[in-house]
């Protein structure tokens, strides 16, 4: 085991590995500690979507700039991350929803996101298997540069590239404590040894609360259990991710041909239980076959659970606070950590290396829950 590192990252998901890559590329000596295997948490169970259509300015901007990075990432990392930009189609069900989404579209357009409102006729042109009556749609918003990529392959590609730049990545290694000195982080204790460091990045997903507890910081995050399923492989049927905020459903056809999707579990509870439920399957299959009746003939193969680490405003907690120097928050992604990871790892890297801060970093600081009236992200599914 190594004795010291400039930066210790706790958590080997897409954000931890992405940051390890960005830092090590700039010559920073990085160590990553992952208690299971790489992408074993939220990254590895997620729906793989990349969406720029958000209701809050920060999320939309993070996602838009992330898409620009995703577009070049396979080349940059030397590994295919299977990016497919088939767009996101967001169903609109009534006038009230249309008003909210019109506002979102206006904000997204002002940032330069190529989103538009489309008619029911155009919905069928984008995704021919949809049934307008069944899904009860009056319109949709569509952004053709949204899409999906392979979360495992993205994480592995980041980790492999980080290792080439000298990052030390330890899997099956648990962080058990963090020592501080004069309001600064000083040491990370793991079950395999002790490492001296100036920076600790908490990218531990739903275990972030545990990591914050080690240094006496309270965070308002809750783990929310989610379920998701995959069908058998099919010939290419449609390219877009279809979602609805009202029904909570999302589904898309992945690179290999399987349809992957999820919906909130009817008896949604906070907690760490991981067993999948029959009620999810019934609710999901009913809604999915209502949206796309032809899928009733298709077999469902697998069904699994994952967690959203949800903050009170459904936006991530990023950056350092005054209480403890060198302790960097990188958690609370509330179900959209994968799609904004390229930009999150870039701005945190710039903060650690150059001390550079930004409006986004300021507005997503942990202190927002104390000082400011928080703006809630409305555009959440699953």
């Amino acid at each position, binding site marked *: 085991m190594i004795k010291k590192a400039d930066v210790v990252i706790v958590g080997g998901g897409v954000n931890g590995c992405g940051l390890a890559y960005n830092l090590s590329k700039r010559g920073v000596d990085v160590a990553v500690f992952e208690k299971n295997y790489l*992408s074993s948490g939220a990254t*590895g169970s997620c729906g793989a979507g990349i969406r720029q259509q958000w209701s809050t300015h920060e999320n939309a901007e993070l996602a838009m700039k992330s898409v620009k990075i995703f577009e070049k990432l396979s080349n940059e990392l030397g590994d295919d991350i299977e990016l497919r930009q088939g767009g996101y189609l967001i169903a609109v069900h009534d006038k009230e929803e249309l008003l909210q989404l019109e506002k979102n579209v206006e904000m997204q357009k002002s940032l330069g996101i190529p989103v538009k409102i489309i008619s029911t006729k155009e919905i069928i042109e984008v995704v021919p298997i949809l049934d307008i009556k069944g899904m009860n749609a009056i319109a949709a918003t569509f952004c053709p540069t949204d899409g999906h990529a392979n979360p495992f392959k993205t994480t592995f590609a980041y980790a492999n590239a980080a290792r080439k730049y000298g990052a030390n990545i330890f899997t099956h290694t648990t962080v058990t404590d963090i020592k501080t000195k004069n309001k600064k982080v000083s040491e990370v204790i793991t079950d395999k040894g002790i490492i001296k460091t100036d920076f600790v990045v908490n990218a531990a997903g739903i275990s972030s609360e545990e990591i914050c507890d080690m240094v006496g910081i309270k965070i308002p995050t809750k783990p929310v259990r989610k379920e998701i399923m995959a069908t058998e492989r099919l010939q290419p049927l449609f390219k877009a991710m279809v979602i609805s905020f009202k029904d909570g459903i999302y589904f898309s056809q992945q690179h290999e041909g399987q349809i992957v999707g999820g919906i909130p579990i009817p008896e949604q509870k906070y907690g760490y239980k991981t067993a999948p439920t029959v009620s999810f399957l*019934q609710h999901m*299959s009913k809604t999915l076959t209502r949206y796309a009746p032809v899928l009733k*003939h298709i077999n469902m193969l697998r069904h*699994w659970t994952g967690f959203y680490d949800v903050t009170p405003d459904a936006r991530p907690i990023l950056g350092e606070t005054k209480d403890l120097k060198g302790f960097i928050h990188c958690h609370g992604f509330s179900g959209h950590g994968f799609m904004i990871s390229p930009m999150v790892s870039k701005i945190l890297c710039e903060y650690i290396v150059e001390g550079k801060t930004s409006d986004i970093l300021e507005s997503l600081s942990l202190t927002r829950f104390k000082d400011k009236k928080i703006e809630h992200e409305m555009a959440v599914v699953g």
Partner: protein
Amino acid sequence: MGKKKTIVCRCEDLTLEDVENAIDTGYTDLEELRKKLRIGMGPCQGRVCFQLVQKILEKKTGKKVPIKSLPKVRPPIIPVSLGTLASDEK
């Protein structure tokens, strides 16, 4: 039989060579191999391949891979059509 022709995972059409190459590249965890190669993500849910991959991994790394570290089988045990799942008939 050559490594290119020995099929390890029939659902995802993976050969012994594919698995050994992934292990050589550094994927030495069964779960990481599964996520990299899609072993066990097909209709058989790993019933055919997991134990084979476990043995290949043990042979390549010289380390014991305990049975309990095999990836969890995810429900349903056999594929079920969405139409059946969506129907209220018992």
